[in-house]
């Protein structure tokens, strides 16, 4: 049931049906020249068809690409132009170095220049283009590498060192051929598909949606933050393709199918056509879903559910409203800390929070304090890496041991609290002591602000994430001292089942439909109700349609999820009655196997919204 388990896991429920008709045709096309279909993990829905832009790859290999016989003349001209361009560049470079360097540099330039002027070299390359109908890049790379390897076999050290020169010349020519677009993500002028080995969330966040149409990477996983960012930016993305960067060449066209987790390199015309049609249908579907944006999230028997959005950056607040969210249920503030040499200042914190609130006005904004885990930040700071980082000094524990840093964030949140309905949420609280300490610090910070006559909301709502078995099992006592809970189902599942959700070797074991996890969730909900505090679910479960009936039936009335999924979840809510949900929950809580639960939930959801499943 969990998306991880399905081979064809998708990020958007509706789209599975649509795809099946296309896949069979794709299979037939597979063997056609040059076109390559690669399977990865779909992390952000949608379709894109655009030219590849490969970034960050230093060790690129030029794959063999064939051209039509009629294209050979053009291709040979490309080779000639590349040589011309390279000579031009080198001349400029030589002039720039001029007399300042020693003769060694001069020698190197001289060698390169002569190679670039060498007609027989050029002829060798163009002959290859002609005889085998291959691309200029491939011919250049092949011939030069041949020469380089010949050199490196020579006993004479001087000659063998020249191999490096040859690689250099190869690179120089390739840059001409690939038009320098290789590295320049910041000055895009046309639509591209970003291809990379791995993408950091900051890189992803920097992509201009106008030009970056799709993303595909060798590494990464469903819950990686780059994936989360791609999703919230609405850029189709597929990750974990393993060797994509080796299969793509500069001018290749790439289709990214972020629904099915497929990337197609160099699609033939027929495939492109099919995908264009499919993309249109998908857009129409999205449009239909957007239409319910104005409609309330109310069950058929009149029970109101509050739908909030999860954000990482303040400028995603807009998207939440656009998709019909009623506020921000989880503002992950880690991004303020990532990829910078120093900690953010109080003013930087405040700015982000203030901007978020200004967009959301009087709607709730729940800001979660720094939840940096070992995988992101704390490991770099420590002198000795921890042996078990996920169970170590991270998140609130890290904050309590770094009060200067913690107080900076708290001050900013408190200052922003006068601007709207700002609520503060603490992650990874596992026991009363941690809660006490945290509240004590918060109080101290409030007193300081009072001393400085800085305004803040004295009655700011304070909540905690319930994401560990210990906090889930002691929720009743924690509930007495907070204003709300939010269940972080991702981590709760992870810690309860002892499975690393990012580890593809065991990820199939990760499932929120596990009876142990569900039992804990139910306990937390009951404790929250008893203490009469608000409770919401903010993990991935909240964005998966087949879990909605169960969550509602267990007593959840507030969900916080990624903005793009809000319309679909709302659709689900509007299609069920609470009575049915209660029945589903009752049945499920009596089951003992994850498989049984998964299947049941899926079947129940299918009855409600057949087109989604």
């Amino acid at each position: 049931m969990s998306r991880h388990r399905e081979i064809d896991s998708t990020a958007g429920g509706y789209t599975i049906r649509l795809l099946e008709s296309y896949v069979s045709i794709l299979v037939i096309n597979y063997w056609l020249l040059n076109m390559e279909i690669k399977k990865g993990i779909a992390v952000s829905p949608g379709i894109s068809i655009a030219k590849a832009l490969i970034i960050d790859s230093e060790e690129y290999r030029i794959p063999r690409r064939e051209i039509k016989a009629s294209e050979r003349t053009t291709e040979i001209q490309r080779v000639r132009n590349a040589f011309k361009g390279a000579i031009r560049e080198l001349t400029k470079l030589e002039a720039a170095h001029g007399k300042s360097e020693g003769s060694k540099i001069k020698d190197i330039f001289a060698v390169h220049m002569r190679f670039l002027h060498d007609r027989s070299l050029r002829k060798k390359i163009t002959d290859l283009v002609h005889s085998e109908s291959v691309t200029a890049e491939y011919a250049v790379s092949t011939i030069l590498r041949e020469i380089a390897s010949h050199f490196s076999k020579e006993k004479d050290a001087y000659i063998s060192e020249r191999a490096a020169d040859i690689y250099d010349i190869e690179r120089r020519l390739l840059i001409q051929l690939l038009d320098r677009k290789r590295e320049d993500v910041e000055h895009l002028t046309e639509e591209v598909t970003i291809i990379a080995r791995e993408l950091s969330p900051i890189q992803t966040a920097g992509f201009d949606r106008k030009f970056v149409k799709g993303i595909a990477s060798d590494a990464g996983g469903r819950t990686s933050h780059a994936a989360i960012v791609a999703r919230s930016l609405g850029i189709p993305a597929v990750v974990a393709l393993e060797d994509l960067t080796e299969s793509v060449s500069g001018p290749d066209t790439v289709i990214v199918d972020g629904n099915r987790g497929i990337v197609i390199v160099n699609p033939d015309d027929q495939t492109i056509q099919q995908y264009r049609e499919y993309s249109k249908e998908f857009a129409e579907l999205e449009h239909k879903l957007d239409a319910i944006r104005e409609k309330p999230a109310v069950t058929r028997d009149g029970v109101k559910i509050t739908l909030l959005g999860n954000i990482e950056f303040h400028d995603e607040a807009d998207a939440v409203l656009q998709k019909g969210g009623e506020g921000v249920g989880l503002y992950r503030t880690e991004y303020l800390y990532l990829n910078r040499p120093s900690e953010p200042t109080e003013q930087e914190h405040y700015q982000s929070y203030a901007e978020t609130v200004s967009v959301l006005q009087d709607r709730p904004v729940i800001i979660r304090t720094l939840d940096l885990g070992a995988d992101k930040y704390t490991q770099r700071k420590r002198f000795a890496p921890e042996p078990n980082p996920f169970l170590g000094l991270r998140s609130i524990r890290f904050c309590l041991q770094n009060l200067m840093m913690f107080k900076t964030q708290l001050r900013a949140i408190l200052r922003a609290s006068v601007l709207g309905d700002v609520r503060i949420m603490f992650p990874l609280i596992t026991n009363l002591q941690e809660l006490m300490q945290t509240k004590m610090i918060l109080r101290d910070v409030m007193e300081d602000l009072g001393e400085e006559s800085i305004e803040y909301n004295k009655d700011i709502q304070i909540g905690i994430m319930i994401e560990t078995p210990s906090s889930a099992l002691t929720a009743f006592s924690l509930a007495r001292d907070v204003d709300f809970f939010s269940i972080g189902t991702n981590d709760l599942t992870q810690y309860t089942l002892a499975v690393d959700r990012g580890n593809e070797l065991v990820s199939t074991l990760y499932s929120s439909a596990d009876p142990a996890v569900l039992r804990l969730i139910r306990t937390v909900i009951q404790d929250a109700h008893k203490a009469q505090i608000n409770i919401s679910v903010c993990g991935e479960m909240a964005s998966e349609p087949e879990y909605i009936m169960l969550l509602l039936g267990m007593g959840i009335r507030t969900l916080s999820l990624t903005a793009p999924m809000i319309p679909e979840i709302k659709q689900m809510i509007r299609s069920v009655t609470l009575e049915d949900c209660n029945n589903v929950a009752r049945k499920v809580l009596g089951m003992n196997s994850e498989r049984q639960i998964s299947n049941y939930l899926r079947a129940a959801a299918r009855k409600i919204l057949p087109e989604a499943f």
Partner: protein
Amino acid sequence: MKFADFVCFKATIPELKARDRDGAITELVSSLGKAGRLGKGKSKGLARAVIKREKEASTGMGKGIALPHVKHKAVKDVIAAIGLSSAGIDFSALDKQPVYSIILLISPVDQPDRHLQAMENIFRHLQHEKFRKFLRQCRSAEQVEDLLREADENSSL
């Protein structure tokens, strides 16, 4: 910041006379006063301030520890006093358990960072069950001092 930097060992009370919260706080405050650590004439109302704050929000952290504190002009730098009670005192702690170890912390009004540094240090050591246990088991001011000094030596980075 280490314990030795801000704890007044002279003011340690290994067995508090008071049986109630307010009394314990008052006892510790006057202990600090006797040790000469409070500004002359400025310590009026200090105990009252701590108690008032304590009433608003209990500093009983659970596991038998309480950390009453306040910012007050009576001090120029952070100062703390340790008080132990074998019988236990009701601090309205979150876990509803009695408090056996009290760390009274007085911080200067205008140095919030020093205060936080002291808190950070206290939190770090209170995480360790052994520390809490040993603290509770101390029978004399010397034992308390030894324990805190040793903790200072062994604190993990």
